[in-house]
């Protein structure tokens, strides 16, 4: 396992409020990591910083084999470097079909002229079918994404993440709004992905995290409060006080 992403001394403030405070974090490849923390701990902001949505005030973020800095890069460039993201609130293109949503995410050249001259390939179609089967939307490929249930939209977004074939997956509260059976399937998929990718999962639900059976990082007030196995962090008195005790 080699380090894929290394964040050090990162801080960011919104109107004087420090949402992320001198945060340092590392993840290897492959690795599955869960991030937990109370509401407002900065979990989503942490993902915003990695994906270029929010520019940190200070700190360093190095990524990949050559250790390139992500700080100066645009959101789209970071995504092309192999960092994919699933949002907390499912965001799919509701006016377009499930197939179109997946096709857009499919790993292919991203320039306007590449896309203009893009021709559907058999391999691409097969890949879409395969992903659709994996996320249980084979029957829904031609349906507008807006017609899907909340859980199905979550799945579609996970499918779009898979289609991008990223190296690092950032998954924000994937199980929200899912049935117990769907949660179980999500857990399996994440564990499976964690075998050959770097995966960061933000989740509220302790049971869900426990089943991921991976290293856990606890965030609080924008910094790492504790890190280790689930049993280790849930036994930490500080963690019990700020998070579990409430």
């Amino acid at each position, binding site marked *: 396992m080699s380090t894929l992403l290394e964040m050090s001394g990162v801080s960011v403030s919104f109107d004087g409020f420090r949402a992320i405070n001198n945060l340092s974090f590392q993840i290897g490849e492959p690795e599955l990591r869960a991030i937990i923390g109370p509401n407002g701990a900065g979990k989503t902001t942490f993902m915003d910083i990695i994906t270029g*949505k929010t520019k940190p005030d200070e700190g360093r973020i190095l990524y990949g084999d050559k250790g390139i800095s992500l700080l100066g890069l*645009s959101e*789209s460039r970071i*995504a092309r470097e192999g960092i994919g993201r699933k949002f907390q609130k499912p965001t799919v293109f509701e006016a377009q079909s499930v197939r179109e949503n997946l096709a857009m995410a499919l790993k292919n050249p991203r*320039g306007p002229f590449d*896309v*203009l001259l893009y021709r559907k390939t058999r391999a691409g179609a097969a890949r879409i079918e395969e992903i659709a089967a994996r996320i249980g939307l084979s029957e829904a490929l031609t349906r507008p994404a807006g017609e899907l249930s909340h859980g199905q939209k979550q799945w579609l977004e996970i499918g779009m993440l898979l289609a991008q074939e990223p190296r690092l997956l950032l998954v924000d509260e994937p199980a929200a709004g899912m049935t117990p059976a769907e949660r179980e399937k999500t857990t399996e998929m994440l564990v499976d992905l964690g075998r050959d990718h770097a995966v960061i999962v933000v989740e509220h639900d302790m049971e869900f995290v426990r089943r991921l059976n991976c290293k856990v990082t606890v965030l609080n007030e924008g910094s790492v409060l504790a890190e280790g196995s689930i049993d280790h962090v849930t036994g930490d008195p500080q963690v019990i006080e700020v998070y579990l005790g409430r």
Partner: protein
Amino acid sequence: MTRGFLAQNPSILWFIGLLGLFTLGVTVLSEAYGTAVLSTSFVKTLGKTLCLCLVAIAMDVVWGYCGILSLGHFAFFGIGGYAIGMWLMYARTEAIVTENLAAAVIPPTEAEVSDAIASQIFGVVGASEFPAIWAFAHSLPLQLAMVVLVPGLLALVFGWLAFRSRVTGVYLSILTQAMTLALSLYLFQNDSGLRGNNGLSGLQNIPGFEATPQSQISIAFFWASALALALGYVLFAWVVSGKMGSVIRAIRDDEARVRFLGYHVESYKLFVFTLTAVVSGIAGALYYPQAGIINPAEIAPIASIYLAVWVAIGGRGRLYGAVLGTVFVTLLSSWFTGGGAPDIDLGIYTIQWTDWWLVLLGLSFVAVTLFAPQGLGGLVDKLVRKS
């Protein structure tokens, strides 16, 4: 691929078919090649309307599909008109001047000819020399290149600056209004090099075709406009279909999300903005020879707003909607403002449509936006779905 593309977009074949029938009908009824039921000036009006339809589908692509509410696309239309107008005026004046000087005993030098042309063209603004921007006006191929290059470059530079700074929504609309306003104010100045508020005139006279009657010229331009509209329609239908269309509509609906999929949104916007500007320039270059005159008032900010109104009334996000809206509103407009609509006497006040038409148009725009965002195109969609 072409077969698949047309098969997937039957509306293209429908549109081309109807446009072809319409062109045939107008030709058969024209003065030049038919029964003379339609006057030459009416043929010109129809030809001009086709050009307006072309700029309207460009507007629909940039706004209806890509979500950029540009309120400056008529500037590109006007630039296309000016670019072709410069050659038309130059070449025609050159012919007149050479004819006049032919009688002279000593053959005139090149400089003398050039000076004579310049003082003919710029006399109205008290100048007698060619400004630098007329450097290519003597050459039709170069000026035709300008029709495409000048709107394209302006859109590229303007779009690059605006999109790079992530100016969106209403701020972008205001910026594009400022662009067209600035251009029109600049052109109003006598020393702009384009004859100030006089604009360029006599554009209906095509050099080399002095002996051809206007009835035939008008039909030729009508055909050219119909062809341009057909080609523009196919081009845009192709752009907004397939994966490109998918990405463009995704940018309209949630551009931030598109970035996280790895697409450089600004490049896409720039591509759409520039391509539509170029097509608008071509539409203008076909329009103004039929109008006969172009002046800076043509690219006043309101013109670009009308463009948005046509597209909104026709129904955004469907190309035939833009065509429907343009035809419907321009025909209705000429009926109302041309005295076709009877005035309404309310006793204390008489509603004269020449004054009140714009109010009615404005109210319809608001009503469509609020209550029928699908516009006229939505009606077509309903009919098609029923059958």
